[in-house]
């Protein structure tokens, strides 16, 4: 293998290297990092006495220059077909001021594996076992002492973990990016299967540079040409690419493969590593997709996870992964964690409830302490009413519609009278519901749903959904609720991100699951008609139906073959809900049993919702709480994906069905109710006059609209809570309170609800936040929330979670506002929407409210254009009639808006008219100001503006 040996000799190897004396031989790489070392090989593929020439990047010089002791060593292993270049940001970031302040520098060693990068071309075929030995040989030759954290990408992840299993005494943590340890149970990804096919393997990986080019092409956004060149640099000729081909050929596709045993040993060995783990993932990876992340989470359940939505295979290129990695190291590995190097302690100190990227802040002061009220499970109310035959839930169904809940006869509910337009309804009693929940739980358990398993529920509100929800709570399964309001793309992202083991849905949802390849064993919410049953089961890939599971569970329970259900553990995960996605991709929000129960208790205490309350559930998140509150609930006849479809008659029919005392509705629904009020009959009016509380939740509702709602429900107290998916509700205000507060800078949302507190983190003139909470009046800043019902954590978004809890004891809402002298909270918009002008920080809401008073303006948004600290305010308006072409508003309108904004202290640089604002799908009310600001910037720079 003369050629191979030559390739490693400095004289030859210098060929493809750029000028060795250059400060940056490749973009982002310091010349001082480059090292070579001759290492005695103990790999079985090499004859005894063989020495191999390694090339690697090492920041030892940078570390020495800091004069500080390194916190440890980060050993970075690339995959195929990249090289140590992939880890350059880790080398650069390891001695940054932030890292030094957080506990000292890290020594980072990023290796070029043999036959790869600028290491020796050995002319051998090195298998997984050899590569793990190679890496161990190198660290031995380097005399690497002290704590080591491994980092691996692609197949380098597997090799780095192999090293980890052989160096447990030294191992302090593992970092993984888009990798996999075991294809067992999974088939190999199609792309890899193709690469392994003998017909294409040699050509695709070695003869041509196709495999390299395809891999480099995965970057999101595309790599800069100079970076692409750097990735290609060690692999310019077929001779230098031999390792790339061999690497692919060493992927063990089945147990007959020579490397299968080594793979198996690593994959099982990591279960007992007992060290902190961080996984950073690009979900758009066509090869190492979310399924491998889930597999890894099963093996390393203590792992913290961050999924970078939109990032792909080369996640280190797509996003800043180095800074979060060092932040994570400082919080999880430095100082203590390394002491618990034996398997067990690190796990034991991390009471994570199974897979999912637990929050790393157990000190979160918003966690209800043991001194709080004793935990009352979500099922307590239902369990106490097993013998109660009064109505628990009513579904309003269109006369012509098919029953979504098969096997249940439609009939009048106990309390309902039914108006002339009443299309009919179905109901269940408390006793029936309690029994069905247990039956379904038993049926689900028999299907294989286990405690901690995630179950995606794609079922509209109503009896079936409620039964499913409480069956999940009974089982300790984690419900994943991604509502159709996210849109198909948003839902796809949400479901993939949460990675449910089971997916239960109506037919349309199952079709979507099939089409978009959503994860999870599929279960149909309803039965199919006998004629289509077999075909649809096959077509949709359905394992069972809910009626089947109910029946099966019933039989199992009657024959006492069903296992007893363990009571819910308060700090186990209970639900994953999703933010609306109006500010970027929807985020998963995890609630534990305790926090869900706290949400129930908060609503109960704030709105005096006693048993006997009858509520119309027109707002999804609260709909699930009816049985927990002991309230009879009814879902009105509406398209839940479009709140605007709720009519006044449908609302009144639903109210009549249960003699409703409380109405929960979204603002969009109430807008339509007011608009269709003319269709109400005398019976309707009577039903609505029995309502004594109307709650409008979702987005702030203006006083004029509330006044119209008051006309429809004259006896009702009108309340509009403020909250977010992460904390629902936070504050509350009544119509009277809104009138009393009057106009001001922002929307007055009232005072904190029972058990909640609110504070402000003042915002600095440059838009940054002062992390010192205050409750002083008239201080504008980020709204901070503390309550027992605040989310447990964001799901698989470690970085986001760290940010949200970075002010100890508080949840950072991302909203901006202030408190007034009466302790009322005023919301002024989103933190991301504040304007950092030369005259200081301005918030957009007051300007928008006043702009919307100008005749001809339908909706207004104020955005900042320009760099933080020097931004100018720009108003973007929807006009009536709508503008035909987006552009500068006419001079008259512009002058009026300028004057109006000036009245609230906001000087506008420009006024733009737009045909339609970008808004979220769920509420159609939250304007995407980030997109709008970017669009306004393009407009006002004279560039092609396109659509926001």
């Amino acid at each position, binding site marked *: 293998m003369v050629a191979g040996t030559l390739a490693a000799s400095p004289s030859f190897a210098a060929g493809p290297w750029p000028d060795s004396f250059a400060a940056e031989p490749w973009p982002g790489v310091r010349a001082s990092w480059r090292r070579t070392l001759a290492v005695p090989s103990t790999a079985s593929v090499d004859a005894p006495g063989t020495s191999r020439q390694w090339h690697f990047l090492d920041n030892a010089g940078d570390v020495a220059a800091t004069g500080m002791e390194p916190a440890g060593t980060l050993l970075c292993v690339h995959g195929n077909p990249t090289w140590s270049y992939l880890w350059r940001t880790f080398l650069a970031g390891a001695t940054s001021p932030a890292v030094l302040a957080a506990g000292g520098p890290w020594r980072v060693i990023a290796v070029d594996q043999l036959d790869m990068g600028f290491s020796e071309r050995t002319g051998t075929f090195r298998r997984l076992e050899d590569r793990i030995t190679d890496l161990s040989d190198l660290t031995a030759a380097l005399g690497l002492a002290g704590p080591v954290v491994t980092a691996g990408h692609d197949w380098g992840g597997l090799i780095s973990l192999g090293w980890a299993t052989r160096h447990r005494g030294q191992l302090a943590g593992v970092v993984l990016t888009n990798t996999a340890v075991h294809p067992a149970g999974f088939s190999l990804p199609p792309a890899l299967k193709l690469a392994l096919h003998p017909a294409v393997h040699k050509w695709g990986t070695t003869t041509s540079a196709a495999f390299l080019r395809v891999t480099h092409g995965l970057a999101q956004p595309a790599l800069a040409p100079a970076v692409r060149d750097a990735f290609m640099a060690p692999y310019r000729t077929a001779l230098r690419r031999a390792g790339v081909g061999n690497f692919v050929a060493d992927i063990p596709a089945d147990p007959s493969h020579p490397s299968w045993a080594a793979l198996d040993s690593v994959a099982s060995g990591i279960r007992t590593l007992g060290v902190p783990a961080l996984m950073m993932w690009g979900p758009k990876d066509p090869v190492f997709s979310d399924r491998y992340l889930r597999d890894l989470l099963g093996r390393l359940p203590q792992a913290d996870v961050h999924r970078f939505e939109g990032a792909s295979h080369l996640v280190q290129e797509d996003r800043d992964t180095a800074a979060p990695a060092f932040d994570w190291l400082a919080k999880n590995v430095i100082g203590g964690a390394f002491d618990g190097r034996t398997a067990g302690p690190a796990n034991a100190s991390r009471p994570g409830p199974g897979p999912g990227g637990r929050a790393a802040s157990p000190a979160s002061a918003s966690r209800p302490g043991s001194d709080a009220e004793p935990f009352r499970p979500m099922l307590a109310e239902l369990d106490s009413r097993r013998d109660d035959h009064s109505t628990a839930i009513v579904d309003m169904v269109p006369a012509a519609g098919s029953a979504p809940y098969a096997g249940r006869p439609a009939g009048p509910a106990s309390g309902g009278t039914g108006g002339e337009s009443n299309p009919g309804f179905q109901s269940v009693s408390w006793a029936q519901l309690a029994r069905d929940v247990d039956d379904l739980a038993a049926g689900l358990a028999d299907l294989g749903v286990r405690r901690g398993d995630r179950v995606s529920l794609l079922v509209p509100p109503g009896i079936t959904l409620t039964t499913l929800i409480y069956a999940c709570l009974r089982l300790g399964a984690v419900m994943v609720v991604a509502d159709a309001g996210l849109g198909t793309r948003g839902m796809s992202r949400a479901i993939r991100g949460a990675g449910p083991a089971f997916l239960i849905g109506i037919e349309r949802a199952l079709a979507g699951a099939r089409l978009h390849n959503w994860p999870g064993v599929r279960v149909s919410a309803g039965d199919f008609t006998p004629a289509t049953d077999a075909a649809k089961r096959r077509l949709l890939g359905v394992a069972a139906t809910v009626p089947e599971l109910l029946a099966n569970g019933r039989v199992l329970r009657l024959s006492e073959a069903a296992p007893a259900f363990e009571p819910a553990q308060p700090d186990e995960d209970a639900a994953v809900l999703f933010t609306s996605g109006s500010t970027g991709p929807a985020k998963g929000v995890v609630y534990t049993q305790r926090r869900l129960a706290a949400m129930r208790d908060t609503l109960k205490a704030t709105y005096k919702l006693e048993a006997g309350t009858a509520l119309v559930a027109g707002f999804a998140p609260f709909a699930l709480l009816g049985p927990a509150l002991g309230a009879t609930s009814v879902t009105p006849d509406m398209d839940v994906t479009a709140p605007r479809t709720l009519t006044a008659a449908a609302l009144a029919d639903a109210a009549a069905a249960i003699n409703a005392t409380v109405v929960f509705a979204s603002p969009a629904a109430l807008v339509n109710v007011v608009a269709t009020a003319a269709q109400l009959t005398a019976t309707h009016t009577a039903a609505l006059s029995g309502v004594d509380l109307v709650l409008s939740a979702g987005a702030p509702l203006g006083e004029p609209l509330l006044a119209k709602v008051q006309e429809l429900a004259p006896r009702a107290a009108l309340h509009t809570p403020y909250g977010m998916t992460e904390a629902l509700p936070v504050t509350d205000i009544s119509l009277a309170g809104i009138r009393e507060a009057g106009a001001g800078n922002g929307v007055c949302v009232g005072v904190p609800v029972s058990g909640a507190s609110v504070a402000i983190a003042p915002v600095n003139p440059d838009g940054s936040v002062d992390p010192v909470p205050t409750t002083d009046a008239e201080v504008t800043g980020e709204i901070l929330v503390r309550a027992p019902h605040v989310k447990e954590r964001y799901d698989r978004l470690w970085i986001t979670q760290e940010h949200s809890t970075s002010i100890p004891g508080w949840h950072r809402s991302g909203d901006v506002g202030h408190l007034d002298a009466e302790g009322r909270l005023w919301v002024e918009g989103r933190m991301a929407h504040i304007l950092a002008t*030369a005259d200081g920080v301005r918030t957009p809401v007051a300007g928008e409210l006043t702009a919307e008073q100008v005749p001809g303006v339908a909706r207004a948004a104020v955005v900042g*254009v*320009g*760099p933080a*600290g*020097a*931004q*100018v305010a720009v108003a973007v308006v929807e006009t009536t009639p709508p503008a035909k072409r987006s*552009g*500068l508003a006419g*001079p008259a309108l*512009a002058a009026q808006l300028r004057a109006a904004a000036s009245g609230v202290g906001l*000087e506008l*640089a*420009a006024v*733009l008219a737009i045909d339609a604002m970008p808004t979220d799908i769920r509420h159609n009310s939250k304007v995407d100001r980030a997109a709008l600001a970017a669009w306004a*910037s393009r*407009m*006002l*720079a*004279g*560039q092609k503006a396109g659509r926001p």
Partner: protein
Amino acid sequence: MSTPARDRVLVTGTSGLLGRAVAQLLHDRGYTVRSLQRSVVHDPWESVRGSVADPDVAARAVAGVGAVVHLAAKVSFAGEWTEFVATNIVGTRQLVAAAKHAGVRDFVFVSSPSVAHFGASIAGAGAGTADPSRARGFYARSKAAAEELALAEDSPGFRVAAIRPHIVWGPGDTQLVERVVERARAGRLPLLDGGRALIDSTYVNNAAEAIVRGLERMEHAHGQALVVTNGEPRPVGELIAGICAAAGVPAPAFSVPGWLARGAGSVIERAWTAAGTRGWVHDEPPMTRFLAEQLSTAHWFDQRHTRAVLDWTPSVSIDEGLARLAEYYRGRS
């Protein structure tokens, strides 16, 4: 030679709108003003007639003054490069040399933000460094070179500051206002890309105040280039509409794509220059690439540093300025 009096100030280029405003403001504030311009004027202050490019004139002009405010320049969107060199570069070098030689203490070079505008949009940026090799058009390049050489002379004994007012306008302005009004009146004024580029501008009184502040705050300002604006960026279409309304002429009713104007501007500019050298035309070309860029790309600035250094804020808002412009035109009609 006697020590120059600190309150004696030479102002060059006083035949222009801004130069005149600066001289008047200095005069009003009690400075002893001497002006240098090419035309005959009757002012309440001492006046020297001639060109800055003439060493003898320069020497006479700076004799006995403590400070110089240098505004004289060839300001045009077209013309031969040699003309810009002679007036803007050579003229400035002569005057700086003469001033140093005469023991002048402070020198304010009135420059232009275009010296650091390289064709891309500027949104909320600082002044930037003048670069004659990248600035667009002969005027900006020659001013960039002049600013460079003036600031290079900055020292504790001869303090130099560059003030760059951006798009100065006001009553009597022939550079911008008159051209806009004339062309709008003739229906020959298009907007580029609907006039949506956000631009800064400076009402003449504000620019004059900032320049005088540059002199008064020389201790802080010397060695620096400071962009001066009203700090109220506006879409260019809205500013032009405001000027047209003040003058009582119809606002531009048609729009041309920016890319087209930039392309056409290059062609027209070359044709006009060629025609000018043959004596066929004597006015400014209707469009140049530089002008098209100015009218179709954003250029507005972060004023925080300027205002802190000068300890100054503009006293006349754009709306107030437009009202004064309207009053001026009403008085003329």
